[in-house]
Structure formats: C-alpha cells, structure tokens
C-alpha cells in the first residue's frame, strides 16, 4: 500500500497558525512522525491561506523535505501554488501533484506542470458536469482522464485515480458504487494506481473510524493500492499492512512478520 500522510493540511487543527507563523519545528515534527509511522508520501496542503498560498506552499515543501527521506504530495487546486511548490522540490523521487481533474480549465492549467516537472498525479474522477454519482460516471470520467493524460505523455504508473469517495450517510449505495468503479478501472489499466481520501465515506455517522477502517479493507480487495490517511492511526495502518499480506502481495508474509516483530501492528 502506498500511504499518503494527510496531516499537514491547514484545514486541520493547529496547522494553519503553524504555517502562518512559519513554525518550522511544528511542521517538521508532524512530517517526521508520519514518515516514522510508515507514510510513503507526505501531503502538504495550505489551501485555506488563499492569497498567501503559493509562498506558504513553497515554504512547506522546503521545510518538510529538509527532515524527511520520503517524497511529497503537493496538494492544491491552484496551479500557481503548485508551480511554486514544485520549484522548491528537490527529492529524487518525483512528487505527486494532488490533483488534476477532467474539468477542462483545471486540466489545461495543471497538465503543463506534470510535463515540465515530470511528476505523478492524483486524477480526480470529476469533470465539468460535477461530482460523479454512479460507478458508471466514475468509470467514464476516469477512463477519459487516463486516456487524455497518457496521450499527453503521462505514464500509466504515474497516475493515481481518485474515484471520489462520498458519504454513505446520504446515499447508502455510494460505497458499493465506488468499489465497482475501482474494479473496472483496475481491470482495464493494470499499471494504474487507485487512491482516495477514505474518511468522507463516514461523514455524518457515529464511530466514523470503524467505517473508514472497514472501507479501506473493502477497497483494497477491489484493487485500491494507495490511500490518503492519517498514518499515526495505528489501527488503520495495521489494517493496510495486513490487507496487503492477505491479498497475496507479501512473499512469505515477510512484511507482515517484520511489522509484527517490530511492534508496528495493533489488533
């Protein structure tokens, strides 16, 4: 599983003031903790800062890569902010840009950045007609987006399709629509990655963590191989490790045994 650590986001408690005050220690600590917990990428997002976003994103990229060995996921809908973040990025492994969509304006603005900086990208399954509802909507939009990206020179293995998780609290079939979409997309494109922000599935319901955890495992069984989540949540990280092994991706269960022996798993 490719875990994208989501904690450095100014819409989360305490992060916005830290970014505004350029509190290096706070941010670096949050980055290191996520890396230690097993995050493969560290997401950086300061979308709440509006006009100051480009400078703040640049600062975040510089600040985080000073202390972690893992690559970053540079997260903004604003192409100008993405560009400034990418300029500051020096890791050997290309960053993931989070995100592009099939909306024509967004696609046109973000694509040149992927090409220029040779990055991977999170591709949200939405277009100018809005958020997808059914599995079919997701499959159609994702297919078009993947085909467009590939014909514009982005390699299949550098695309992380996000099927856009929406709450089952308002539509009880939503969970299964997304799973069906993951199935079809991963069958059609073997090298493609599937990622998502899981926690939206449980919006408006009690004991949300339980729904998030269960949905992680369900989605993994249908071909999701990445997730944007809180890597400090030991339970969900344990499920990701275990699911990976149970789905036959862990030779001699080596990764699972290693994780168990180093006390990284919790039941």
């Amino acid at each position: 599983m490719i875990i994208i650590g989501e904690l450095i986001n100014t819409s989360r408690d305490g992060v916005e003031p830290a970014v505004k005050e350029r509190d290096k220690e706070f941010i670096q600590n949050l980055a290191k903790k996520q890396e230690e917990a097993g995050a493969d990428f560290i997401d950086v997002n300061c979308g709440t800062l509006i006009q100051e976003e480009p400078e703040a994103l640049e600062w975040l990229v510089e600040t985080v890569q000073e202390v972690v060995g893992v690559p970053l996921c540079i997260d903004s809908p604003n192409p100008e902010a993405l560009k400034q973040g990418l300029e500051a990025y020096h890791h050997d492994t290309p960053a993931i840009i989070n995100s592009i969509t099939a909306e024509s304006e967004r696609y046109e603005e973000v694509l040149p950045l992927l090409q220029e900086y040779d990055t991977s990208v999170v591709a949200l399954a939405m277009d100018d007609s809005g958020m997808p509802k059914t599995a079919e909507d997701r499959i159609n939009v994702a297919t078009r987006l993947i085909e467009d990206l590939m014909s514009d020179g982005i390699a299949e293995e550098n695309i992380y399709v996000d099927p856009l998780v929406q709450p089952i609290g308002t539509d009880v079939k939503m969970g299964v629509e997304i799973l069906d979409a993951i199935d079809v997309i991963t069958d059609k494109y073997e090298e493609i990655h599937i990622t998502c922000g899981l926690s939206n599935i449980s919006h408006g319901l009690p004991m949300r963590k339980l729904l998030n955890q269960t949905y992680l495992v369900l989605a993994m069984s249908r071909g999701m191989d990445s997730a944007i989540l809180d890597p400090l949540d030991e339970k969900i990280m344990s499920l990701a490790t275990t699911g990976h092994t149970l789905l036959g991706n862990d030779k001699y269960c080596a990764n699972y045994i290693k994780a168990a022996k180093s006390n990284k798993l919790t039941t």
Partner: protein
Amino acid sequence: MSKNLVELLADLNEDEALNLIESKIEDGTNPRDILEDTKEAMQIIGSRFEEGEYFLPELILSGEMINDIMEIIKPHLVDDGEEDEKLGTIVLGTVKGDIHDIGKDIVAFMLDINGFEVHDIGVDAPIQKFIDKIEEVDPDIVALSGFLTTVFDTMKDTIEAIKDAGLRDDVKIMIGGGPIDEQITEYTGADDFGDDAMEAVALAKKWMGE
C-alpha cells in the same frame, strides 16, 4: 396506550406515523393540526441531531417523511387564509464552482424547522442566480455555502455583485461550509460565518432580533 403523532414522528416510526395521519384525516382532523404536530416533531428531531443522538441518515429520513406527509394532507388542505408567521426570509445556495450539497441541505433543513422561510437555489449557483432570487423574494438574510477552499474568491465576488446591485444594505450575509474563520469572512465581505447548521440558526435568529 399508543404513542401520539409527535412521538411517532420524532422517533422516526414512519409507517406507523403515516398510518395514524391517514386515519386522522378520515376522522376529520384538521390538516393544520397535523402540520403543527409535524413541525413540533421536526424540532425534536433537529435538537436530537444537534445533541448527537441522531445522525445524518436519520435527518434525511425525516426530510422524506415530511414529503410523504405533505403528499397525504395536501389534497385536504383548504386555503383558509391562515399563514404561518415566519421569523425571516433566507436565500441560500452553494456558490459557483462548488457542488457540495450536504452541509447546505442540513442548514436549509434546520433553518426551515426553526421557522425561517428558506429559498434554496441549489449548488454551483451563478452570481446572477443569487441576485435574481434576492430581487424576487426580498430576503432578510443571504447565506453562501462552499466547502472548497477555492471558492472564497467566488464568495467575495458574489457579495461584491450584491453590493453593486444595490442590495447589500437590505440583507445580512452569512457564509459557511468549509474551513472558514474571521479572516476569511472579512476577506469575502460577509457579515459573519457559522461552523455548522446550529450556528447558522443561532446567527439568523440573532439577526432577526430573536
């Protein structure tokens, strides 16, 4: 003893409640009394939601119950000239560029059951749609919703346009939906913001002098 209508509705016993309503209608109960009971039940449901006893799907179910009830009693409602006193009129919508509806719908629901007349213009609402609606219904309050951080500028533009149309002094404007704080409120030119539906209701009531 069987439960009364308010209890049945508040406990979300949909089938029993609808049966009871049907038999009340047959017995010649004034449909307005049924509406009153429904309103009372919805207020109980709203406060149970606020207190964390009820959750989003239950709120949605209660919304569907209202529709079903209206369907049953509408043919029996005679226009007796009696109008419900409204606390105030509100135009509400998710601004252009954002299609999130859940939060906005909860706010609309909570305002409605708390006695406001709510005109919901939907999601991804162009600026002109707000202006047109404001001119049409002359609201006391305009509520702009948006979940994406990208729509702060759209909120600002929308409020600017309301000002340019000469309507700004007639309305109070609240924003909400995403990670919004005082600074963003000031940036957009709104009067205030709310973190959730309960705050929106409290704010609206405050503005109406309640």
